[in-house]
């Protein structure tokens, strides 16, 4: 991390610190204040959008650990979210267990399913693993759609609102706080994971797994651990999504969503902690922007058939993914680092 000149690190703690200088702390606390007072001035539909952004950040952070740090390409993330969502739906809905227990079980079950479908990663990698995860997603969604007695099949399932003790999270604002707290915890976990022993092992596996094995990193353990952690976070995100929408259906978790999550990871920046946040915010706001301007475009160009703006979203995202991969494969996080460095070194920022 770039530090201003004159800042010296005299011990390990300050060297490893995430927020090193007072300016860092000031910006961070300022940001926290803005985020946690957001419900005061945002209306419900914006709060809803930010809730969705928060949920997606958790899922994409998990995907980032799997793909960005450990290099295991997984295009089935929406399927693992579905596992988490339905677990919590069944536990809190049909069985009436408390919300927090349901949340934890959702993460664990998704993590377990992730380990099962991640077993082929020990034998294959690259494209083969990608196809396996696509197959995994389709099988999971198929089971959800057809195990009607447990999941309600195609008719879907109603999920009660989250509640901790007597406190029911019904309004968008209360869910906002719940989701933001969980997002903060997950980001903290992800950042520390990346900085620690496990994170270094993941990066070694990503860069050259044969060499990593030669150096003594147990490939089976670390690859499956990556799947477990990635899918655990996906399960938690899925559980929060279930409580937020109130209704679950296999159609919520499509292959297109999985591709979108990969896109978010890439646009944000693979292998960084802040990457998922940037990627998710950019894509979700883009989605909302397109939904917002669709009626205007439709009225402005009546010559084209109605409904063409639904195609505008995927077109734009596909284009954005392609452009980012060609022009800036390290994502917006890299641009952000460059910007910070330029700011610090100005006027010598070339």
């Amino acid at each position: 991390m770039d530090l201003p000149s004159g800042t010296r690190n005299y011990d390990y703690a300050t060297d490893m610190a995430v927020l090193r200088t007072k300016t860092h702390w000031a910006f961070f606390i300022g940001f926290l204040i803005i985020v946690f007072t957001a419900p005061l001035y945002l209306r419900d539909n914006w709060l809803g959008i930010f809730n969705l952004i928060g949920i997606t950040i958790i899922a994409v952070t998990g995907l980032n650990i799997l793909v960005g740090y450990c290099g295991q390409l997984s295009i089935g993330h929406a399927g693992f979210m579905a596992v988490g969502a339905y677990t919590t739906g069944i536990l809190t809905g049909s069985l009436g267990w408390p919300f927090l227990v349901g949340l934890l079980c959702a993460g664990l079950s998704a993590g377990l399913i992730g380990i099962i479908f991640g077993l082929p990663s020990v034998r294959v990698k690259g494209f083969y693993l990608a196809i396996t995860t696509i197959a995994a997603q389709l099988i999971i969604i198929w089971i959800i759609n057809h195990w009607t007695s447990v999941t309600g099949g195609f008719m879907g399932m109603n999920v009660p609102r989250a509640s901790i003790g007597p406190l029911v999270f019904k309004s968008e604002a209360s869910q906002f706080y719940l989701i933001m707290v969980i997002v903060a915890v997950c980001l903290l976990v992800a950042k520390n994971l990346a900085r620690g022993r496990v994170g270094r092992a993941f990066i070694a596996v990503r860069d050259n797994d044969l060499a990593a094995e030669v150096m003594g990193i147990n490939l089976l353990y670390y690859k499956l651990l990556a799947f477990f952690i990635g899918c655990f976070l996906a399960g938690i995100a899925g559980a929060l999504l279930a409580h937020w929408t109130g209704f679950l259906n296999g159609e919520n978790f499509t292959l297109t969503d999985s591709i979108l999550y990969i896109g978010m990871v890439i646009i944000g920046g693979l292998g960084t902690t802040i990457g998922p946040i940037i990627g998710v915010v950019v894509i979700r706001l883009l989605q909302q922007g397109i939904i917002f301007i669709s009626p205007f475009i439709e009225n402005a160009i009546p010559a084209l058939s109605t409904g063409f703006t639904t195609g505008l979203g995927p077109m734009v995202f596909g284009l954005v993914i392609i452009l980012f991969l060609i022009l800036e494969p390290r994502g917006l996080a890299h641009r952000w680092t460059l910007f910070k460095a330029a700011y610090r070194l100005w006027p010598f920022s070339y």
Partner: protein
Amino acid sequence: MAELLQYTITGLAVGMVYALIALGFALIWKSSSVANLALGQLVLISSWFTYSMLVQAKFPYWLGLPATILFAVFLGWAIERFTLRPLIAQPILAMITVTLGVAYFLEGVVTFVWPVSVASLPRFFPQEPVHIGSAVISQQYLWAAVISLILFGILSLFFKYHKMGVAMRATADDQMAVQACAIPVTSVFSTSWIFACVVAAIGGVLISSIAGIGNGLIETGLKSFSVVILGGLDSFIGCMVAGPIIGLCENLGGGYLTTIIGPGIKDIIPFIIIIIVMIIKPYGLFGETRIERI
């Protein structure tokens, strides 16, 4: 017993259609080691283009179908030139993801230009089904199977004897050596993508004339992945053999297992086969095992 024959015949026919689409994938893999995850969407957009030629613009067959082939040529060239050439030396993750981006983009384009979302093509072949024993098979499936076999024959011969085909095989093996021999690698890539798109277009036209155009074509594309995995990613004969196998498993499974397990088992059988193949023999029936060294 009569239904066994029907399932078998339908399964083989459907499998040949899957094999046709899988040929496009194998083609690209064989020449440039790029995984084309946009298969289903290529088929979809070619079918929609055929629809707009034949139904919306009302061109006659001899004009509309070659126009579709031209469109496929252009599409293949454009995809290769603009999305894959800038990424030539990048890691495999980037290549796969860019095809995902292309897939997403094409899906959007289809909804953008043809929001009507479902349509049907005029029928090319007579409706009278052919009777084989007590089973029936529609003529369209027969023609699809025949055309698949012809294309397979042409492609195999091309790869074995034609100069460009040999160049493609060489590029898949070692790009730098090919460049040292003064063969332009970029034109090899272009040609392979153009061929793949043309094959996908032909497959798309055949399937849509049977089942109509709609997003179901993307799912058919996904099932072709299972053909590719079972047969081996870089083997044409693998596609031709694995296609009917998958089709057979699908239909026999659908016919007999539905009463036991429940409806819809037919859709998931190809993907269960993928998982099984991954566990037992990841490189498929006819694929080359990759040996990696540090």
